[in-house]
């Protein structure tokens, strides 16, 4: 009896507001581990970032740095076991997604947060028509009948620039080109008016011209609907064109954050600089393309200090001995590198001094 009385008091107070009121997604110290036969892979180890309502953030990093696992963790699509959420919180509008029950997380998936996957060729079911697949999510989240769902689907297809949407609804995925399929995926994602769109390497599998169209489309839709965008990519060119803020990841950690201009023009972490230098461009014609030497560290034998130190051209003893925190440099600007510690201001000066084309 007492429980029934107490329940309504607790029910309307589920949210723990996270900082400022306009934060949509706040990932705090997320740790996603995988327990496999050889041990534990700490795929994501203490990642924090946040996205404002309508904001655009890119998560950048090499393959295996944990950016996709971060995205899948937000959607709670990590299979547990072997996966494990070892710590942290993912606050979406103040509610922790990691502790949400299955029924509610299904409402969030697709309805509140939509995800666009990497491979348009394989993320549509080959034996279902395009229409059935788009309408399925609409029927689940929107509470409309089949006719209403079809109208929403048609409008979504028009919005993503698919010509003759009526015919498309009846087609099977194998009848469509890669770019067209990615448009369908985007139509699916936005058909339920999500508050956050996660695009996980959404343009990587497409060729460059289509890539650009799709990026512009995602951006246009994001601006029109006011949804926030989390763009996951390894392509810094894509980053520069699409988002406002960047978080660079390395070995399961965020190593640098800031606005696009700051991070791309004045990287404060040698890893980010290495990434930027390895982009081929007109100005570097005739020169040897620089690459970050070495490879991503073995996840079972991470170095004790800075995880990037073995590959870092600027490292010194401090880096070998201990790992830096994310050092705040300015407003929303931080880097996980000892160079930014006040004690090493001299080294920072010499880091900043040489031009990007310094010979190695």
């Amino acid at each position, binding site marked *: 009896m007492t429980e029934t009385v107490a329940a309504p008091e607790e029910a309307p107070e589920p949210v723990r507001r996270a900082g400022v009121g306009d934060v949509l997604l706040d990932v705090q110290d997320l740790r996603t581990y995988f327990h496999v036969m050889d041990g534990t892979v700490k795929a994501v180890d203490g990642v924090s970032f946040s996205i404002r309502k309508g904001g655009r953030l890119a998560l950048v990093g090499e393959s295996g740095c944990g950016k996709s696992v971060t995205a899948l963790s937000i959607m709670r699509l990590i299979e547990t076991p072997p996966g494990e959420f070892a710590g942290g919180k993912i606050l979406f509008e103040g509610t922790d997604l990691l502790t949400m029950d299955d029924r509610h997380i299904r409402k969030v998936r697709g309805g509140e947060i939509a995800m666009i996957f990497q491979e348009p060729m*394989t993320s549509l079911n080959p034996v279902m028509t395009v229409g059935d697949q788009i309408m*399925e999510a609409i029927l689940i989240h929107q509470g409309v009948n089949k006719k209403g769902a079809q109208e929403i689907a048609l409008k979504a297809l028009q919005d993503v*620039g698919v010509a003759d949407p009526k015919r498309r609804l009846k087609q099977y995925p194998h009848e469509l080109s890669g770019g067209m399929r990615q448009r369908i995926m985007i139509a699916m994602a936005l058909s339920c008016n999500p508050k956050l769109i996660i695009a996980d390497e959404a343009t990587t599998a497409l060729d460059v011209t289509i890539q650009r169209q799709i990026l512009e489309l995602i951006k246009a839709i994001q601006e029109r609907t006011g949804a926030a965008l989390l763009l996951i990519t390894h392509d810094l060119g894509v980053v520069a064109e699409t988002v406002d803020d960047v978080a660079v990841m390395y070995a399961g950690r965020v190593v640098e954050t800031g606005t696009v201009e700051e991070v791309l023009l004045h990287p404060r972490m040698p890893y980010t600089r290495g990434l930027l230098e390895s982009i081929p461009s007109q100005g570097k014609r005739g020169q040897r393309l620089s690459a970050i030497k070495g490879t991503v560290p073995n996840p079972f034998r991470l170095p004790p200090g800075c995880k990037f130190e073995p590959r870092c051209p600027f490292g010194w003893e401090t880096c070998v001995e201990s790992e830096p925190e994310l050092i705040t440099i300015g407003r929303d600007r931080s880097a996980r590198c000892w160079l930014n510690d006040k004690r090493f201001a001299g080294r920072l000066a010499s880091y900043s001094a040489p031009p990007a084309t310094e010979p190695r």
Partner: protein
Amino acid sequence: MASLVPPINGAMTEDLDPGGPDYDVQLESLGQWQIAWRRFRRHRMAMIGSALFFGMVIVGVVGPLILKYNYYNIPVPDVHVNAGRPPSLSHPFGETGRLQWDVLTLVVNGIRYSLLIGLIASAMGAVIGTIVGGVAGYFGGWTDTILMRIVDALLALPLLFVILVFTKFLGSGNWISVTIIFGLFEWLGIARLVRAVMLSLREEEYVDAARAAGISDRRIIFRHLVPNALSPIIVSTTLGVAGVIIGEAFISFLGFGVGFDTPTLGNILAGSLGFISQGNWWWAFFPGMAIVVIVLGINFMGDGLRDALDPRAKI
């Protein structure tokens, strides 16, 4: 209706879409089933098999309606002669010994019930097997281990003895209970098959995409994955019909299956047991041939389906 996203340049849609007004090709691309049907039609053995099988189905469905005698109302002859009579014009398949029943009437009615038992039992097996295999393969882990160990345990039981025990409890001789018993054992193979297919299908990216769209596990299994696993299920179910028909004939012949009040090809053979030595070959030959034709037809058809539904096969 204008697009709601005007800033995207209009040329883009034309670039991408081959179905624009200028060059509307309208390539009628064939669906998975159309391609399979086309291959199936070209498969000679499959067509022979289908003709045999569906011919027998027609005999089973239409035959009892147009025959001179009704199985339940075959006139009892005045003179009791123990030996049967060989095929003649009025009784093309001959007459049985003891009661002098028309063998043609027996066989046609037997075909009807044998097919009915085979089809119902395999359909039951397909449904149960798909559900169990689908759930086990999709969820994996403990669910998978428990369900598959149950399957292993049931497969380890000698079917014949289990059926003997079951028929004792479920009312011996009733054809419906025999059908259910076969159905309850038919699903084991299909469950294993579906599980194996599911294990690979669940790793597909569209499963992640469906989950990310908030679609429930149940819907993903039965709406997204089972249709992808349909080809092996169809082949296995088809071949299962033949298996059940033979199995039923076998246990009915031994006298533990369907009783004599319902004719099946098996219990007609059982009736002929003492009379073959007297030279009454027709009593055993015609029902035996019916079994052979049905089973052969199904097996040819199943092989054809396997070839037609395999996307990698080139025929």
